[in-house]
């Protein structure tokens, strides 16, 4: 019951808030003090994307007990897919005015488009790729990892290694994704100029909607019988096996879905910030995203959204006000939250029992590991 109320609250906050901001930006004249300047819209849009990423992470961490340290990889891959479409949209308006080749390719002296760029001139295709590519990667990776019963910190370390490797890969020019400069100078999406505030606002609203939809999807999943099995796996994996469930396949499904959600977030992120480059793969990003969830309170979904918003608000403010402090702050946040706020901020207000996930899951893992060690 309380859960439902919380959910409705979340949705109305996200959608309502976005709508209000949009209105105050578009309808109120710039002179009025009530007018919301464009950069606020841009920032809001960015945060909403982060919220989607956080949501994805909470889905696997909060409910399947999989602590991922590489989810930014899927986020970035989605972003790159979208970036490729936006690059093709530029067409001949690039510096080198090459109708087919993006500038950076001309710059490194490529003469024709590599095969894996075909089709990205169509929005629908790019959109498909936004989900297919990260989804496939997640599936293959998960299939390996879960089938071999890799879990706990080992899984975390591997996910980090994954995003790390991808970062290195995308830094290479010959990958054909713009090397360390990545892709930028986008002109427009589906014909709407990106620099017009109506477009910005539109994107922000779309993001808000997508966030709400993914939220509902995630919620539907965890409230289905599937979700219950997932929680069961988190709490006592060996037991679920003796009930005849195959935990690996459940993890695999939720892991892939989560990766796709994250990727969509990334795809929405790129047109709003106007650039995508390999630094998005940096392991640090993934872990920072995890702390958003931890701060908000894992295993609640709305906590993830709240956390992403708050932490990033703090980041924006601190990095501008006293940049020195930022890393201290975020670092301290990790420590304080894990030591004193295991259930995050939302945990302070709900009477729910703490999600025993990590502790028991890890205990269970230990047990099974010991068995394996026999």
């Amino acid at each position: 019951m309380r859960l439902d109320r919380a959910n409705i609250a979340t949705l109305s906050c996200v959608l309502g808030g976005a709508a209000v901001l949009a209105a105050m930006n578009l309808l109120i004249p710039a002179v009025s003090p009530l007018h919301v300047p464009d950069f606020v819209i841009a920032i809001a849009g960015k945060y909403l994307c982060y919220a989607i990423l956080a949501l994805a992470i909470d889905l696997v961490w909060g409910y399947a007990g999989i602590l991922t340290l590489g989810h930014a990889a899927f986020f970035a891959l989605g972003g790159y897919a979208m970036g490729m479409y936006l690059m093709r949209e530029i067409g001949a308006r690039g510096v080198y005015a090459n109708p087919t080749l993006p500038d950076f390719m001309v710059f490194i002296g490529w003469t024709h488009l590599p095969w894996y760029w075909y089709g990205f001139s169509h929005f629908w295709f790019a959109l498909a790729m936004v989900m297919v590519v990260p989804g496939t990667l997640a599936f293959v990776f998960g299939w390996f990892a879960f089938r071999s019963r890799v879990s706990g910190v080992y899984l975390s370390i591997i996910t980090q290694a994954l995003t790390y490797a991808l970062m290195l890969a995308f830094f290479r020019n010959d990958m054909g994704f713009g090397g360390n400069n990545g892709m930028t100078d986008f002109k427009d999406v589906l014909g709407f100029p990106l620099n017009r505030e109506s477009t910005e606002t539109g994107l922000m609203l779309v993001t808000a909607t997508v966030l709400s939809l993914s939220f509902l999807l995630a919620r539907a999943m965890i409230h289905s019988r599937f979700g219950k099995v997932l929680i069961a796996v988190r709490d006592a994996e060996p037991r679920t096996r003796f009930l005849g469930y195959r935990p690996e396949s459940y993890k695999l499904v939720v892991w892939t879905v989560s990766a796709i959600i994250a990727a969509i977030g990334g795809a929405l992120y790129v047109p709003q910030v106007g650039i995508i480059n390999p630094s998005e793969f940096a392991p640090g990003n993934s872990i920072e995203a995890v702390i958003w969830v931890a701060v908000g309170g894992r295993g609640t979904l709305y906590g993830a959204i709240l956390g992403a918003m708050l932490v990033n608000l703090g980041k924006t403010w601190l990095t501008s006000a006293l940049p020195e402090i930022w890393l201290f702050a975020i670092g301290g946040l990790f420590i304080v939250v894990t030591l004193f706020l295991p259930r995050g901020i939302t945990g302070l207000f709900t009477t729910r029992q703490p999600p025993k996930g990590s502790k028991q899951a890890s205990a269970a893992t230990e047990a099974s590991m010991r068995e394996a060690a026999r």
Partner: protein
Amino acid sequence: MSEPTLLYLDGVTVSFDGFKALNELSMVLEPGEMRAVIGPNGAGKTTMMDVITGKTRPDQGRIVFGADIDLTKLDEPAIARLGIGRKFQQPTVFETLTVRDNLLLALAGDRSPRFTLWARESADEHAQLDRLLATIRLVQERDRRAAELSHGQKQWLEIGMLLAQDPKLLLIDEPAAGMTDAETAETAELLREINRTRSVVVIDHDMAFVRALGVKITVLDEGCVLAEGSIDAIQDNPHVIEVYLGR
């Protein structure tokens, strides 16, 4: 042997770096039978459960279930789906789920994500759950989180989950451990009730409890069967007395 058997352990050996936890253990369980397994510490009782449920692979020997299924070839989920349920020494239920959901997950049926993602609770399932809750005396607690149950209640919930699986064979490890006398008696009653419809193997130290079950007893020692028979036969068996009183 001519008559149909439910479970047949044939010369099963398990050794952990040198030490033989099970040593050529052979045992036969008839359909519908309830069997109590006792024995001093380290006799291999829990290991026996592990090999039957696929948690541990035996070094030698076969474990035949029903007509001709060799369990040593299968893993836990597969064996569980064949209809062998197991209850652990420490009650392990899904703490953060409600009592009812714990049972719901245990209910026999399709275990694949494809199914559970879209599964809706059927009227039949609803009825089954109510029946189960009644059987394990947890109707009041149906919507409480399992974590909030007492030790005895958790034990029952776990047994309830076993029943929900609708298994042909139940393996139960020390159900009476740490229970009050009242709870112990009720547990024995519950097991007899269960045994009307399915075969059961119970491990326990508590002789009062085993006596209350009043079934055939197998005494394990050092990984193999030391004696088998009725409680009285066992009590007079010199080997058993040897094992329990003196070495």
